[in-house]
């Protein structure tokens, strides 16, 4: 057989270079589909995997960072507290490209406090919630995102109102908020590429069915339910900085969001004309569609210019983790001055 040059991306890496260990999740688990799109998006964007840092909490979803980007460091931290670990790491090394994977239990139940404060700080990272409405890894109890009236296989019914992580994020001032569905790979891929281009917290709430515990009739987080009810807000495209946009889109039909690195998110109008830079509109749209029982996906809000936490703190350009004694230990004169002030 004649050997063929492998297909590579802009930095000369093959798709394989973005893969991870073999998944140990249940066959058909929505989370594996998300993993697949993450691999693809990072490959597509030509991100150097060695610059990436992967974060997670605890849960089936939180295991997935082991299944993508083998060449990136990853940390499977403790339950619900990944945001703080990510914050520390990304402050320590501002060159890292952070991606965090969480679950609905990990974020909306135990992790609520840290999630709120991560978003409030606009820590530069992609934050994905693989949302299946249950605690997969502990065998299927309801999480705080389960809808009222949702039924477990055991017959248990959920009475408590769900936390809508997208509304919450928009309310808290997040700079990038989207929802997708692990069964909608095209949209998910585009959103992931956009999230990679975003500087700030990019919240992605991905409905990702748990085939073992929450994929039956009566579940509002099943493949069937999500497929039947998904209403995309717009058709999302991503155009890298080096590509030309003009030719392709008719004005009026497509909104374009220009990202910091020159790339563009294109949002082709579907039923409604939606402006993702209007926070109030986002809140209204989310609330109204929720009240109507609709499952809306898309990019609800984005503000590429919102200051991220690293900039706000005016951190040194060189990562703090690379600074050495010379940079970090003031001279004897400083100590003397301090001591002098105390005499």
């Amino acid at each position, binding site marked *: 057989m004649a050997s063929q040059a492998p297909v590579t991306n802009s930095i000369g890496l093959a798709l394989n270079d973005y893969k991870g260990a073999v998944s140990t999740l249940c066959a058909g688990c929505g989370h594996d589909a998300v993993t697949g799109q993450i691999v693809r998006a990072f490959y597509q964007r030509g991100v150097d995997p060695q610059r990436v840092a992967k974060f997670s909490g605890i849960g089936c979803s939180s295991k997935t960072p082991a299944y993508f980007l083998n060449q990136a460091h990853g940390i499977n931290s403790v339950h619900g507290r990944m945001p703080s670990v990510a*914050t520390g*790491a990304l402050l320590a090394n501002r060159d*890292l490209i952070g991606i965090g994977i969480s679950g609905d239990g990990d974020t909306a139940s135990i992790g609520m406090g840290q999630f709120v404060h991560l978003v409030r700080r606009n820590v530069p990272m992609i934050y994905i919630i693989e949302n299946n409405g249950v605690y997969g890894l502990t065998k299927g109890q309801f999480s705080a995102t389960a809808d009222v009236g949702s039924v477990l296989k055991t017959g248990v019914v959920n009475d408590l109102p769900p936390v809508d992580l997208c509304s919450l994020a928009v309310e808290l001032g997040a700079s990038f908020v989207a929802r997708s569905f692990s069964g909608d790979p095209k949209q998910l891929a585009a959103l992931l590429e956009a999230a990679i281009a975003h500087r700030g917290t990019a919240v992605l709430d991905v409905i990702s069915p748990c085939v073992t515990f929450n994929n039956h009739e009566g579940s509002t987080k099943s493949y069937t339910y999500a497929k039947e009810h998904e209403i995309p807000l717009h058709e999302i495209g991503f155009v890298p900085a080096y590509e030309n946009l003009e030719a392709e889109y008719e004005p009026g039909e497509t909104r374009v969001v220009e990202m910091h690195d020159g790339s563009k998110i294109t949002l082709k109008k579907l039923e409604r004309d939606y402006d993702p830079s209007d926070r109030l509109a986002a809140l209204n749209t989310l609330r109204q569609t929720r009240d109507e029982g609709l499952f809306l996906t898309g990019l609800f809000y984005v503000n590429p210019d919102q200051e991220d936490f690293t900039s706000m703190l005016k*951190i040194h350009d060189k990562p703090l983790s690379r600074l050495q004694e010379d940079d970090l230990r003031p001279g004897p004169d400083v100590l003397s001055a301090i001591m002098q002030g105390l005499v």
Partner: protein
Amino acid sequence: MTVTAQSEATLSRREPLVNDFSIEVATVNGSGSQSANNILMRAIFQMGIPVSGKNLFPSNIAGLPTWFTIRANRHGYIARKADSEIVVAMNPETLQADVQKLRPGAVLIYNSDLKVTVSRDDVIVLAVPFGKLATEACPEVKLRKLVTNMVYVGVVAQVLGIDMAEVEAALRKQFKGKEKAVELNLGAVKAGAAWASENVEAEIPYHLERMDATKGKVIIEGNRAAAIGCLFGGCTVVAWYPITPSSSLCENLIGYLSKYRVKDGKASFAVVQAEDELASAGMVVGAGWAGSRAMTATSGPGISLMAEFVGYAYFTEIPGVFFDVQRTGPSTGLPTRTMQGDLFSLHTLSHGDTRHPVLIPGNPREAYEDAMASFDLAERLQTPVFVALDLDLGMNNWMTEPFEYPTKGFDRGKVLDAEALEKVAEFARYQEVDGDGIPYRTLPGTPHPKAAYFTRGSGHDAHARYSERPADYTFIMDRLARKLDTARTLVPQPVIDWRDAAITLLAYGTSDAAVMEARDQLRAQGIETNYVRVRALPFSRDIHDRIAKSARVYVVDQNRDGQMLELLKLDLPASEIGKLHSIRHYDGLPLDAQSVLEGVLERENA
């Protein structure tokens, strides 16, 4: 109003006590007496007399009783002393109680406006017309309350013989630059002094005389000292959540960092006020994992909240520095009282088999040094390291030699960068390589294909691969135990004063001052003692050796359960344990020499 020296008859007329007594100011917090007390203390310090200042304050912001004690002592004793010779009673609420607890012969200074009768004839009573003097010194009503405190400075200075020039210098230092304030306050001091020189007839049996024992020394709180250590220790990520008595550690550090570690508007550090202690611990873990020197400071309740993260960092072998400025009890315990109550918690924090190094400074200089050392140690051992101060050290004023500039450079531990990775055959994150239990690590972002590994709890093999194999588990656990053993030689070594005596006093942290004083008292009674001051956990072998050489060991703990003694029990050979005797102090006040003395004598004389 003249001064009645009701007590003269009952007082023995002898030489005044020179440079060996305490002054206590009873007041309410938020009343601005802190400046007055500082000035008094500094003036004495500037006279070359060893001095210490301890503030006993309530857990609220303003209006509750507060006592500030200044101890001047020519021998350099700086521990708390149970009672005071001069009491300035400014708080009507506590006046009667303050009077009751006066020792015979003491001097009471109080506000004659209060119209109370002082029913003690064995003390010297100076009833000072504070209101009148303050009004004269300060026509502005708004400022008068603050200035009132300066009146007692003047009275005290006058009756004890404090040099007015030193008072003025201290006052100028306190109000640096603010000419108006200096003038106003100095006026009040002078008014107090003038009143005293005119009205005090009684002979005051206490006197301060110049010495030369404070030259070159500085006065500092332990929290500030630790902050300086963090500054010079190269700390880059600070994640904290306010809590008394630790807040001023981070607040001082933020001040220093902003001043000395910003260049061209760019900071060589990041500070986050986290949403709680779980988050601050998580940030430290994340930052340590990513390769920076990270710290947090908290107190007991925060330590409890950090338990899961600290255990996680132990098993994943992530460096991080955790300061615990210990206080008394839970959140609604006594947050403004001191205790060495967390020692046990710190050493064993988290579920499962976890043990952590704990550094225990006994004075500001050690707080500075330990803060620096903790970052080296955390990175060398790849584990969370605690530095245990207490409220007494952290928030009170301590006299100390100025700190020395470090002679040793940073130790960043076993980190493989891209270049190093190129040279090694393989990189296995959790492998035993050097026999010291410490593996090698790489940092996220290292540009090398061999660098990456996936971090997770204890469920991994030597290559950081997920494993549930029994042998992999025991391998990791045994190596971790070995690492703690290595720590014995790396942590600060005990401070030992060996006299070949049968009795050894073993103490740690702020008990030092009281123990030193008690040893002199014991010696005066013919009892010589060795002294071992533990500086860190795990115990160095030297501590074992010294205990082996002793007949009886008195272990001094500022907690109920004798936690240091308990930790010794866990570490010592069985044959040594019988030698240990416990001296415990846990009422929330700093330890005093008397308690130590009694603890020893009770047994020795039994």
